[in-house]
């Protein structure tokens, strides 16, 4: 599975690069927005059906209940603490590093928002750091899955409600759908607020 995922990712990147730098065959928006959102909606539906049909998964989820919400808050605190530590390790602004890690992998938000609040240099770091988080989540899945049930969800941060969701469910089974989606959803809502709150500390 991971072979095909990496291949599709690579082919997509090359196609996107050529399309915007060499010869524009189609408006990039068609692929990045419409094709992406359409396939994601379709997939969410299909994954939902599979989950709804799975009696065992429903029973497991009922036992866990709302306790599942500790996952996104643990990811948020862990990310921000990791950012704090990274600021010290790199000898850079601790506030900047914390704001960057409060993007939780959502690079299209973190890049522009951190840039606006803390300047272009931090914006670029916010962009790349969160992009790398998304990339790492996808390519390490065969390993992280073995490290524990919620480890891929912890890796993915805010991306587990959309971009990395299908891959996580594919690897971890239908019962991962709700954990991943709800964690990604909560973190996506938290991300802009925590970035802004942390940036004002600087």
């Amino acid at each position: 599975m991971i072979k095909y995922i990496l291949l599709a990712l690579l082919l997509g990147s090359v196609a996107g690069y050529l399309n915007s730098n060499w010869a524009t065959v189609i408006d990039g928006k068609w692929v990045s927005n419409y094709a992406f959102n359409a396939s994601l909606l379709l997939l969410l539906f299909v994954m939902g059906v599979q989950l709804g049909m799975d009696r065992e998964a429903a029973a497991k989820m009922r036992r866990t209940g709302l306790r599942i919400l500790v996952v996104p808050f643990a990811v948020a605190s862990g990310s921000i603490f990791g950012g704090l530590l990274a600021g010290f390790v790199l000898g850079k602004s601790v506030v900047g590093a914390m704001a960057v890690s409060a993007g939780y992998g959502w690079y299209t938000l973190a890049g522009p928002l951190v840039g606006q609040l803390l300047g272009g240099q931090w914006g670029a770091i916010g962009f790349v750091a969160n992009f790398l988080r998304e990339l790492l989540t996808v390519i390490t899945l065969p390993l992280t899955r073995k490290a524990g049930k919620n480890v891929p969800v912890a890796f993915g941060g805010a991306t587990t409600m959309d971009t990395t969701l299908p891959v996580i469910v594919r690897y971890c089974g239908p019962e991962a759908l709700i954990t991943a989606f709800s964690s990604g959803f909560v973190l996506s809502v938290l991300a802009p607020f925590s970035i802004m709150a942390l940036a004002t500390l600087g």
Partner: protein
Amino acid sequence: MLDLTMLYFVMVLIAGIASGYALRRRKKLDFSKVAFGIIMVLIFSLGFSMGSNGELLSSLPRVGLEAFVIMLLAVAFSVVLVKAAGKLVKLG
């Protein structure tokens, strides 16, 4: 994506789960081939947006290492806290 799209995601997901629940008595349907095809389209378009993002590609070599250190520590402590919290509230 903090807009209506998020709401659509939630609604479609709930609709899917409800349909699956309604179909429970039927023989198990196997969507894995369909899902695989859609995932490939999805990952391709994810790559496409990365590849066509000039700003991202130009900042990669400049800030890549610092960004990598920040990301790695953020991910590491996310995992540690998720594991600890999972034990605390006994997430199966």
